[in-house]
């Protein structure tokens, strides 16, 4: 019995050591931001990101890069998510590996929250300055109050160099040029250190003498005389006056050193100017839509009417940032993240040009592993089983029209 116990103890100890070693040595890089775990309907029916461009794949510390593109605020915004009346154009990165040097919706700088209108399309750009070396997944992102973060596509960007060389120099309205990375740091350490020492001095004063047992015995016996002496009271008054004096001195000194200060700035920004999109001359009606679970494919029956003056073909279906393309109509050369691009994932039963004035019913299938990888198939478990997305039609000259689709989705399990 003892031998068995010893063996169990030894093996347990080895297992513990192995676990600790594994935990310490195996530290893989986190390479995503949970975008796949966000409910599929949130990604499909809120903000649709398109025409995205990451200006550089590699930047050095202190260099800038830009993410630009457009987003469409879906008119059929789900009831379970608050409307984007208070939204913030954010960026999905693992902490401040870049600083956000600027962000714009249209031409308006948007350092604060904004109001977005349903059904409108906006252009945006985010200027980032590289700060911390590494390979980082950089996402577009819109935070919506009452809705949470709505994350867009992400692409890896590499930062080279050393973080020690990063500077964030700015000139204030009082004419000082400062490095925001370290501005005021020694002042913070000084005041915190000074006050901590004052606090420690007060503690040490009381801990010089016996602290707990004799005092507890005296208090329990009602012998309070001598526990607080006249000398103690004098020292306490010195601390009291000294504290108030130091606070007043610090405040006076700060006011004379920084005579011009302003309160923190806040407030909602309204009136974001949407893009003027070309008039849509194509009418699309979703007759039915189903998601075939075993085949990882979504099938739509669409009735399309071309009211324009040139023939068009369906080239792209974009939903939740996953792009399904028909390569015979449109090929992407923008460097869009490969895992989100099904470059031959769209098949159309009859994709010959739809002539002006023609109405045609077609079967469209969007199939790719991305349905599973990006957990869009989980849509069938969402509280509102509908899908939505952008259809892009192209004419012979490469002109593009964007049409929103939104319809119930029926899962097919067998």
């Amino acid at each position, binding site marked *: 019995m003892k031998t068995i116990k010893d063996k169990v103890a030894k093996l347990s100890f080895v297992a513990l050591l192995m676990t600790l070693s594994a935990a310490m040595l195996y530290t893989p890089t986190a390479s995503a931001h949970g975008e796949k775990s966000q409910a599929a309907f949130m990604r499909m029916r809120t903000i649709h990101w398109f025409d995205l461009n990451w200006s550089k794949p590699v930047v050095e510390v202190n260099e800038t890069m830009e993410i630009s593109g457009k987003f469409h605020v879906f008119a059929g915004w789900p009831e379970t998510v608050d409307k984007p009346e208070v939204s913030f154009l954010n960026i999905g990165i693992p902490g401040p590996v870049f600083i956000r040097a600027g962000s714009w919706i249209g031409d308006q700088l948007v350092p604060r929250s904004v109001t977005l209108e349903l059904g409108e399309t906006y252009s945006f750009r985010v200027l980032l300055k590289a700060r911390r070396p590494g390979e980082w997944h950089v996402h577009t992102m819109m935070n919506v109050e009452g809705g949470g973060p709505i994350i867009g596509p992400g692409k890896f960007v590499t930062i080279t160099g050393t973080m020690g060389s990063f500077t964030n120099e700015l000139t204030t*309205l009082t004419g000082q040029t400062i490095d925001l990375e370290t501005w005021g740091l020694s002042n913070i350490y000084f005041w915190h250190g000074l*006050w901590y020492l004052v*606090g420690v001095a007060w503690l040490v004063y009381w801990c010089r003498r016996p602290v707990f047992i004799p005092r507890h015995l005296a208090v329990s016996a009602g012998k309070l005389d001598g526990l607080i002496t006249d000398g103690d009271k004098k020292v306490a008054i010195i601390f*009291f006056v000294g504290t108030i004096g130091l606070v007043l001195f610090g405040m006076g000194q700060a006011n004379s050193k920084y005579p011009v200060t302003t*309160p*923190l700035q806040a407030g909602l920004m309204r009136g974001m100017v949407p893009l003027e999109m070309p008039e849509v001359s194509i009418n699309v009606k979703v007759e039915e839509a189903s998601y075939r679970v075993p085949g990882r494919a979504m099938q739509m029956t669409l009735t399309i009417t071309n009211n324009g003056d040139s023939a068009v073909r369906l080239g792209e279906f974009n939903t939740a940032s996953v792009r399904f393309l028909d390569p015979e109509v449109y090929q992407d050369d923008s460097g869009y993240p490969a895992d989100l691009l099904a470059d031959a994932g769209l098949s159309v039963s009859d994709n010959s040009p739809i002539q002006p004035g023609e109405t045609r019913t077609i079967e469209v299938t969007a199939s790719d592993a991305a349905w599973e990888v990006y957990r869009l198939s989980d849509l069938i478990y969402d509280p509102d089983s509908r899908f939505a997305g952008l259809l892009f039609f192209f004419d012979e000259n490469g002109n593009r029209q964007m049409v929103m689709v939104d319809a119930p989705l029926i899962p097919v399990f067998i």
Partner: protein
Amino acid sequence: MSASQSAVRSRAEAVKVSRTFDYLIIWTLFMVLIGGYHIHFMLTGGDWDFWSDWKDRRLWVTVVPIVSITFPAAVQAMAWSRYRLPFGATLCVLGLLLGEWINRYLNFWGWTYFPVNFVFPSNLVPGAILLDVVLMLSGSFTLTAVLGGMAWGLVFYPGNWPIIAPLHIPIEYNGMMFTLADLQGYHYVRTGTPEYIRMVEKGTLRTFGKDVAPVSAFFSAFVSILIYFLWHFFGNWFSQTRFVQST
């Protein structure tokens, strides 16, 4: 040695044991406060203390003193009632600040690389010393609640102003005016903390024009008095010794 015999055999030995006990208890209490008070404060004060762009003259001034007077009141009640020791508030605040600085330096800066001048904690030491001194000189929890609680709330903003003033210098950036603290919040990306979560300059305390901080400080001081009363009762309850009668 039987259970009825003393563990010490001389006065010198008793003094030595007593002092060892003092250091052990102080150290243990300090560590418990670092943990307990820190968690309490992070859950209730949270972002107001984490980020410089939350440290405004209205809600920061109001919220932080109110939620932070809790543990000092409770520990004061224990230390004064049981030991006539007037350092409960200071001990709490020093523990909290040490815990916060460890957190801010190792986690916020060392792990996620937010600059320290963006994530420094609020300074609570002046209020703690005033609270301890008022208790010691008055010997009354009522006076400590009223005068000390008031001082705790009132001294908070001026006690922190020398630290935050440099971050309130205005700057023009891409055609808009910011303070440097606002710009820190904009530059140093917090994916999980969108701008609208920031609760700054919200409220109706605008009677005195631009002098918002004193009004907020007085309001905070009044509520601190009430919270002091409540939490000093907690301190009393938790420091009672109860004996069970043997049958």
